[in-house]
């Protein structure tokens, strides 16, 4: 079987879970004998494959940061141009015989639909997040929604990363639920390190990820737990506001903003953190939660996160419930048996979340459309 996979990010260049997913999925598919050509925009970083039947094909010359909200009209214009240019290039460059065209999220959907029409190969799309998620359900942009909807309608099969996301696709895009398969994400385990008194937020600093709720919980925790640091790791449009917020709340000496981290730095902070909090307003899955758990870090996640429907050994909160979030953070810091139970049982459960399983389930979907 030969698959043309259209993506937009691939390690070492990645902004979110989509890149992580494409990396794990393509390598495990290759291990199962599937030939995968992975198309992505050309980046400054060199991206290489470590599998014989997995080929990374860079198209075009600009990086696209699809998670940034194009607020500024001028940048927004360039951004949309870049997206169109990339999609056009894809349609030109994807040549040869493929059994399946596989797209990830809205950014390559136009090309996916065009290639399906041009080559007659079936189209599979994976939905990692929708415009509703990325906007935190505030003012979703119709331009994205229309692209997403067209792609979903024309796809032969849709893979959703959680039941939560499947429901959004059914309810907000009017897609037949029988066309949608749920395949939960996976993780390459990070492994445990020397734990310190660190409570960690790690993710894009956008409305979707709820970093301001983390800071408010941090404020409350810091009143009770004096020897505890809070790390806000990641970059995003909310960074300046969050720094201000920390100063205003008088906890700037307790909170460290790291900015964007390299892969190695991400692993390091997961290894040393004692508590990981994922207070996402909207979270189709949340691979970082799996990464934290694989590093032996007990994790508090938003009740509406896709990962929380799939994973038992974690704590759950409503993202807006600051008191309960703080209650659980403090409990994890104070009660060793709780910390140990979640760390140990979490690491055990995480063994079920392998890319090999994701590849198997994805292959089932391919076989269903070819």
């Amino acid at each position, binding site marked *: 079987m030969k698959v043309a996979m259209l993506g937009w990010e691939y390690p070492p260049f990645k902004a979110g879970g989509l890149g992580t997913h494409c990396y794990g999925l393509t390598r495990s598919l290759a291990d199962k004998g599937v030939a995968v050509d992975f198309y992505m925009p050309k980046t400054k970083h060199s991206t290489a494959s470590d599998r014989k039947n997995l080929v990374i094909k860079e198209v075009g010359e600009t990086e696209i940061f699809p998670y940034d909200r194009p607020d500024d009209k001028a940048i927004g214009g360039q951004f949309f141009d870049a997206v169109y240019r990339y999609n056009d290039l894809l349609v030109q460059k994807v040549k040869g015989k493929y059994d399946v065209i596989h797209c990830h999220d809205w950014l390559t959907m136009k090309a996916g639909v065009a290639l399906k029409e041009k080559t007659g190969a079936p189209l599979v799309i994976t939905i990692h997040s929708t415009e509703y998620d990325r906007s935190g359900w505030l003012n979703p942009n119709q331009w994205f929604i229309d692209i997403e909807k067209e792609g979903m309608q024309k796809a032969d099969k849709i893979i959703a990363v959680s039941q939560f996301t499947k429901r959004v696709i059914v309810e907000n895009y009017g897609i037949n639920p029988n066309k949608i398969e749920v395949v939960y994400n996976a993780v390459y385990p990070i492994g445990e390190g020397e734990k310190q008194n660190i409570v960690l937020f790690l993710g894009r600093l956008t409305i979707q990820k709820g970093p301001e709720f983390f800071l408010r919980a941090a404020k*409350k925790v810091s009143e*009770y737990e004096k020897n505890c640091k809070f790390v806000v790791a990641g970059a995003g449009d909310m960074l300046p506001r969050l720094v201000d917020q920390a100063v205003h709340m008088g906890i700037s000496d307790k909170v460290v903003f790291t900015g964007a981290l390299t892969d190695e730095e991400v692993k390091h902070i997961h290894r040393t953190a004692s508590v990981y909090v994922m207070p996402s307003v909207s979270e189709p899955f949340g691979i970082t939660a799996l990464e934290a758990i694989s590093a032996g870090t007990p994790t508090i996640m938003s009740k509406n996160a896709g990962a929380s429907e799939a994973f*038992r*050994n974690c*704590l*759950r909160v409503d993202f807006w419930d600051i*008191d*309960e979030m*703080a*209650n*659980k953070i*403090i*409990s994890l810091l*104070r*009660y*060793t*048996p*709780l910390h*140990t*139970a*979640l760390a140990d*049982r979490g690491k055990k459960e995480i063994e079920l979340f392998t890319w090999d399983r994701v590849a198997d389930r994805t292959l089932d979907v391919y076989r269903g459309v070819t």
Partner: protein
Amino acid sequence: MPSVCIYFEVHQPVRLNRFSVFNIGRNIDPYSTYFNHELNHWIFEKVAKKCYLPTNKILLDLIKEYDGKFRISFSLTGTFIEYCERYIPSLIDSFKELFATGAVDLLEETYFHSLSSLYDDMDEFEEQVKMHNQMIKRIFNYQPKVFRNTEAIYDNRIAKKVSEMGYKGILTEGTEKILNWRSPNYVYKPVNCDIKVLLRNYNLSDDVGFRFSARNWPGYPLTADKYANWMASCQGDIINLFIDYETFGEHQWIETGIFDFLKHLPGETLKHGNLDFVTTSEAVNRYKPVGDIDVPWAISWADEDRDVSTWLGNNMQVACFNELKDIGRKLKESGKKDLLHTWRLLQTSDHLYYISTKGSQDGDVHAYFSPYDAPYEGFINYMNILQDLKQRAI
């Protein structure tokens, strides 16, 4: 001629309020902040309507219909009786009426359905048994002869203590762990003291308690005549059917036919000339021990493991249990008697049960009974309350 000895456990825990770390040390009245009286009231009314009231009525009718040949036993926990007195006093009258027939025996246990039998010292255990004793005396003017510990927890030490306290019999689980090849359908005695041990026939008991409505079970559907045939073909002196009372109408809903099963059980059983019914006291009086049992490590009737891992199977549970014991020592040292009742309500084994992290089928059963989303939530809540009480105890 085997006798059928039916005994029902009747218990409701006093469930906890949501109590965050920020409530610790606030010094608000513990009784009203620790316990969720609204939820408890609601659950108690619900279970009373679905189970206690209708089942009591059926049992009373059956005892009258069979002229006292249908005989049963109950253990009523102190927390259950407190609920009755607060919310449905007529339920106590209904139990009194049952007891007045002479066909009903009452058992002794710890007032709070606690794990105090597992503490390092037996004094708290003894106090709670005495409290239960006084309660039964006050309401029923009766002195129980047979003891059953929380969820049938049993070991040599407990048997010895209970025997020293003057009881003639004690109940526990008829598990192979202590019987090996031997049958539970006889009376035994402990190796280390003189008391008769009644052992639960867990196959026949669980047929009713757990499997009654399981469609994938070969015995389904279970009818009274089929069940009576099974009992009639049993060897031995006594068939001990020890069952949660809430099986009737609550764990097994009315739609499963559990009440019809109960209504026909005495008649179908008595059709077999070799079967009769006895209470726990009568069983202890009538039958002689056929052998010894040696139980150095505690067993119980809970979960597949049939031990105390249900309550003390992980470190979160052990940590809470240790806190509980520690608070007790502090309370007794400081003489803060007003907090004793609250501390004892927190000893009810259910609070630890909710923190169990067992997987598979047992885990599902735990989840069914738990007011929490996950054992971790149960731990946080319970531990926060224990921390608050600990601060008050000093």
